[in-house]
């Protein structure tokens, strides 16, 4: 519990800063609205206010600031506004909405749960494919010198290349040959998680030191035996470390993959929110995606803990 104190303090400070920042950020709209409602604002007329600094406007109109935290389409929605929107587009929409799961039997296409599940589906499928293939390639690299010398340098170099730039193209190309829906996004997710898993797994499979591998040679152990009994168990911590990176990358891939052809998903929702100025929607979608990322990484950590404990490694 002692560890929680500073964390809560920092989080509280961030929230306080957020509220404070919302005031100068939203000031232009707030004053325009106040003027429309008849108040006298300084300086008068939206045109005259355009060139005045935000902080000056805040200082000069201190008594008109009440609306700063309840603006619609605010430049910076306040935390409670975002929470409200989150609630409205998840629980509220599904339980009470006309198209919600309670009233219509299927997820509402306005709810973040629906969009989140679309993104999640592509993320998980892509992640499984990408890490599965990555593990296989890593095993190949460790056991074949040809593969090691030919492919491994490219795996390392690929980490410096912004692979995500390929995303729009992959989506459009696959769509044009008729591959739609979850699969194109899963391809991008797979691609983004592939190389981190390869590099991490290779490092892990090679982690046993010379003393350990020499010992197995004195037992005349075969290569498969050395693999299953030494290399694979030794690689588990490295594998999970790169799986955490991989799943976060898969999520980013799925989100980016939803941008070119918007057929639902959190990425499409964020883009839509920014096009139509629905900032609360944007923020709510972003927070939902962030929560999903945190939960997925935590889940991998939990699986890691269970695996390590079964292997006899006390945490």
């Amino acid at each position: 519990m002692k560890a929680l104190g500073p964390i809560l303090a920092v989080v509280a400070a961030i929230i306080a800063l957020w509220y404070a920042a919302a005031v100068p950020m939203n000031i232009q709209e707030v004053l325009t609205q106040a003027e429309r409602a008849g108040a006298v604002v300084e300086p008068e007329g939206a045109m005259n206010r355009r060139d005045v600094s935000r902080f000056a406007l805040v200082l000069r109109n201190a008594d008109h600031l009440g609306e700063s935290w309840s603006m619609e389409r605010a430049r910076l929605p306040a935390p409670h506004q975002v929470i409200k929107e989150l609630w409205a587009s998840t629980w509220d929409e599904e339980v009470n909405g006309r198209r919600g799961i309670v009233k219509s039997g299927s997820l509402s296409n306005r709810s973040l749960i629906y969009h989140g599940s679309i993104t999640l589906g592509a993320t998980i499928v892509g992640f499984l494919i990408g890490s599965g293939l990555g593990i296989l390639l890593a095993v190949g690299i460790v056991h074949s010198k040809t593969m090691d010398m030919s492919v491994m340098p490219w795996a390392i170099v690929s980490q410096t290349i912004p692979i995500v730039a390929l995303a729009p193209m992959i989506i459009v190309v696959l769509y044009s040959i008729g591959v739609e829906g979850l699969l194109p996004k899963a391809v991008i997710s797979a691609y983004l998680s592939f190389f981190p898993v390869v590099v991490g797994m290779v490092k892990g499979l090679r982690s046993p030191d010379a003393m350990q591998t020499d010992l197995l040679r004195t037992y005349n152990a075969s290569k498969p035996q050395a693999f299953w009994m030494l290399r694979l168990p030794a690689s588990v911590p490295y594998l999970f470390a790169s799986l955490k990176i991989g799943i976060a990358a898969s999520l980013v891939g799925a989100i980016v993959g939803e941008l070119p052809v918007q057929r639902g998903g959190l990425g499409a929702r964020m883009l839509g929110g920014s096009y139509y100025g629905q900032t609360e929607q944007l923020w709510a979608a972003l927070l939902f995606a962030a929560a999903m990322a945190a939960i997925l990484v935590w889940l991998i950590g939990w699986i890691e803990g269970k695996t390590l404990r079964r292997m006899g490694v006390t945490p």
Partner: protein
Amino acid sequence: MILVVAAVAVWIGAWAFNGWLANGRLSGLASVRLAVPLIFGATVIVVWELIVRGLQVPPVILPPPSTIVGAFFGNFGILWPDFVQTFAKGALGGYVIGCGSALLTAILVDRYDFLRRGLLPVGNFMAALPIVGTAPILVMWFGFDWQSKAAVVVVMVFFPMLVNTVAGLRDTSAMQRDLMRTYGASYWQTLFKLRFPAALPFIFNGLKIATTLALIGAIVAEFFGSPTRGLGFRISTSVGTLALDMVWAVIVVAALTGTAFYGAVAWLERRMTFWHPSQRK
């Protein structure tokens, strides 16, 4: 059809050759270590060319490498301003601001233990989130031009850099810190003479990770909105018009930029941390 057969032959032949190189007596030579992956890469490109032409794959699906090279050199006039916009202004600007502020914050965090215990878990958490999602918000605040892309980059590189630097500053042994106490050294003397140089390997680890994140951030941010310039912009519009050879040309630019940027930081790392065991192999 002949081309496809040729492609298979090239693949088998090159793989066999590489196998002979890798498993033979020459495999230790530095030149061979460089040649094998290059041969592999060249083979992939040759086989790509042959298969795409042999199976007559429509260029809107997958153009052959020769067309891409043509597009790269042919469109240099467009690609250069795109590069400047995305990399020189967006990615680099955000990189410098993000890494610089992360370094200063790390020193603050190191000085005040309360901050470390509070900010670091939050920082670790933030580093794992899909920060690219902040791109539309930042475009709304900073406008379409490179400043919003730099802002996205700042947000993306800040936390990984902070986490790495703090880890580095803490990596001194109790003995080293005791030695400084026996000299009656002040906090700042200890910081600049001991902890900062000792932290350099970690700092460079963060800087290298940040190079990749910076480029990704700048490009993806442009997917969310951009003036009529920029690598991300070029990709999304070319994809829209199915000008895939242009898309691939942009990807080549991005790949070269990413590798060169990373390579530059790695070179600097070798010069400044020559003393570290990992650099002395």
